[in-house]
C-alpha cells in the first residue's frame, strides 16, 4: 500500500457484511478474494440478495469461487466499460437498503464509485477494499484526456504526449489522479522513468 500520502488520496478498508436488503458487489481480478473473505464472515443466506459484477481480467481466475457463493445475480464481463451500462441501470433502479461493495484495483473502485456518486450515493456509505495492481488512472490537467493503467513515474499522456508527473491528488468526480507536465519549465530535462505503481 502507499506510504504517507495526502488527504485527497483515497483510503481503502476491508469489506465486511453490512445490514441491508440488497448487496451489490463490483470487483475485478484479485478483488474477488476480498468478496470470498467477506463471505466467510457473512450470515447464512447473505448472498441470496446479492448481485456480483465481476471483471476477471486476462487470466480469468476466481470465477468459480464467486459463482460458488450462489449470488442472486452473477455477471462476468470483459472490461469495466462493458459492465458500466448494467451497473448504471442497477444503481438507477436501486431502492433504499442497497449496500454497495467495491473491491479490486484502484481504477475499478474509482470508476464504480464515480457511477455511484452520479446516482446520488454518498461516498462514505460505500465499502471499498483495494486488492491487486496499484496501476493508476490519471487525468492530464493540460489536455483533460484520461490515461488508464499507468504504472510509471513519470508517465506519458496517451492523448497529448506530454510527460506527466503522476500526483497523489485525486478526484472522485473524475475517478482519476492528476497528471501535470513534469518538465514544463524546460522540456530538455527528462527525468528517469521508474515503474512504481505495479
Amino acid at each position: 500500500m502507499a506510504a504517507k500520502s495526502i488527504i485527497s488520496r483515497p483510503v481503502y478498508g476491508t469489506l465486511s457484511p453490512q445490514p441491508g436488503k440488497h448487496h451489490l458487489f463490483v470487483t475485478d481480478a484479485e478483488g474477488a478474494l476480498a468478496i470470498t473473505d467477506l463471505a466467510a464472515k457473512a450470515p447464512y443466506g447473505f448472498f441470496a440478495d446479492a448481485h456480483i459484477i465481476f471483471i476477471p481480467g486476462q487470466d480469468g481466475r476466481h470465477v468459480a469461487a464467486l459463482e460458488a457463493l450462489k449470488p442472486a445475480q452473477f455477471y462476468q464481463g470483459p472490461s469495466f466499460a462493458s459492465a458500466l451500462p448494467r451497473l448504471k441501470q442497477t444503481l438507477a433502479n436501486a431502492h433504499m437498503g442497497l449496500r454497495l461493495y467495491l473491491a479490486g484495483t484502484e481504477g475499478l473502485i474509482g470508476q464504480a464509485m464515480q457511477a455511484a456518486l452520479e446516482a446520488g450515493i454518498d461516498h462514505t456509505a460505500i465499502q471499498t477494499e483495494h486488492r491487486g495492481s496499484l496501476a493508476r488512472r490519471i487525468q492530464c490537467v493540460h489536455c483533460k484526456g484520461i490515461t488508464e493503467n499507468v504504472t510509471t513515474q513519470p508517465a506519458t499522456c496517451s492523448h497529448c504526449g506530454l510527460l506527466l508527473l503522476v500526483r497523489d491528488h485525486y478526484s472522485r468526480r473524475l475517478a482519476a489522479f492528476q497528471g501535470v507536465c513534469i518538465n514544463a519549465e524546460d522540456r530538455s530535462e527528462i527525468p528517469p522513468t521508474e515503474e512504481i505503481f505495479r
Partner: protein
Amino acid sequence: MGITFRKETFRDDFTFKNSPEHIRRFPFPFHEDSYMYAVNIEPHVLGPKGSVLENLIDVDEHYVAEMQDRALVLAEDPLRCQSLPHMTLAGWDLLELLMEQQALGYPEHFSLTRDGDRWRWINRPLGIDDSFTFGDVSTLPYGPMEYITRQSQGDFCILDQRDGNLWMDAGMVTTQADWSLDFDIGMNFFEWHAPVPLAHEKGIFVRALKFLTNIQQGKPARRLNWTMTINPRLDTSPENYHKWGPDRTTVTPENVGDKVHLRVELQSFWRLPRSNGIVFPIRCYLIKMDELVTQPKWARRLHRVIRDLPEELANYKGLTRYRATLVEWLSKLDDGSPTSPGFGPD
C-alpha cells in the same frame, strides 16, 4: 471623477503596469521580515481611503483589461467556469452581492435598479445595460455566476456547506495560482487543499474550516496569500503550465526588475443569504519588482522574506529556479536597517 481604466495586456506583449497611486495602494502581504503560514483571517471591514480596502469589493484601473483577459481564457477553455447543478441559487446570491457592492462603491461606473424581481444592471466600463428577472436563468445570457463574474475582478469559488464541511461546488477561475477548478470541483475543504505542504501538520486547515463554517451573513472575513509570477500573467493555470512554465527560465540579473512580479491574493469569505453557501473571491494583485522597490521598506523586507523562506515553501511556490537571482538583486537594496511594523510603505 471615476477610475481611468488602463489599456493593457496580461499575455503576449505584457503591457500591464501600475500607476504610481496603484503602487502605493498595493496590498503588500508581509507585516514583518519573515513569513510562515498562519491562520491570518480577520474581519473584512472597510480600510483607509485610497487603499484596496476602501471598498469591500475593489475595482481598480486594471478592471477592463482583466475582464478582456478573462473572456480570452474562457473562449479557449470553458471548463474554467463550472457550477454543479445544485449551485444555481448560490449563483444568484453572488450576482446580487457583486452588483450591490460594485454599484455602492463605484456609482459613476455601475448602477443597479430593482423593482421587485425586475432588475436593471448598467456596467458603463464594459458597455452593458441589461434588464432581467432575478431568479429566472432564461433572462440572462449566461448562468448568474458566469454572468456577474465576467464583470468582476478576481476568481470566485462558491462553497456549499454541508456535513460540517465546505465543498468546492462552483467557480470562475481564470487567474489562479496553479490550481485546477476542473480537477478540484466537488472536493471538500481538506481534499482541495491536500497538495499544500506543511499547513496540514500545523492544524491550519482544521482551524480555518471551523472559522469559515461559522461566518455570518453581513460579517465577511479576509486573508492575504502570495506567490510570485514571471511576467504579469493572470492565467498561471496548471492547464497552461506547459505554456507559461518556460518563463521561469528567463530571469537574469538584468531583467529581474521587469520580469519578476509579486502576486498577492486578497481572499475574502462571505455568507450567502439564500443558499447558505460561502463565496470566496480570490482577488489577484500583481506588481513588478521595479515598481515594488520604489518603496524602500518593501524592498528591504521582501529581500529578507525571500532569502529566509523555507526550502519546501519556495519549491511549492515555484521560486526555486530564480530565487538566487532575485535575492542577489534585492540584497543591493537592503542596507540592513530596521523596517517599521505593519504592511504599509513608510
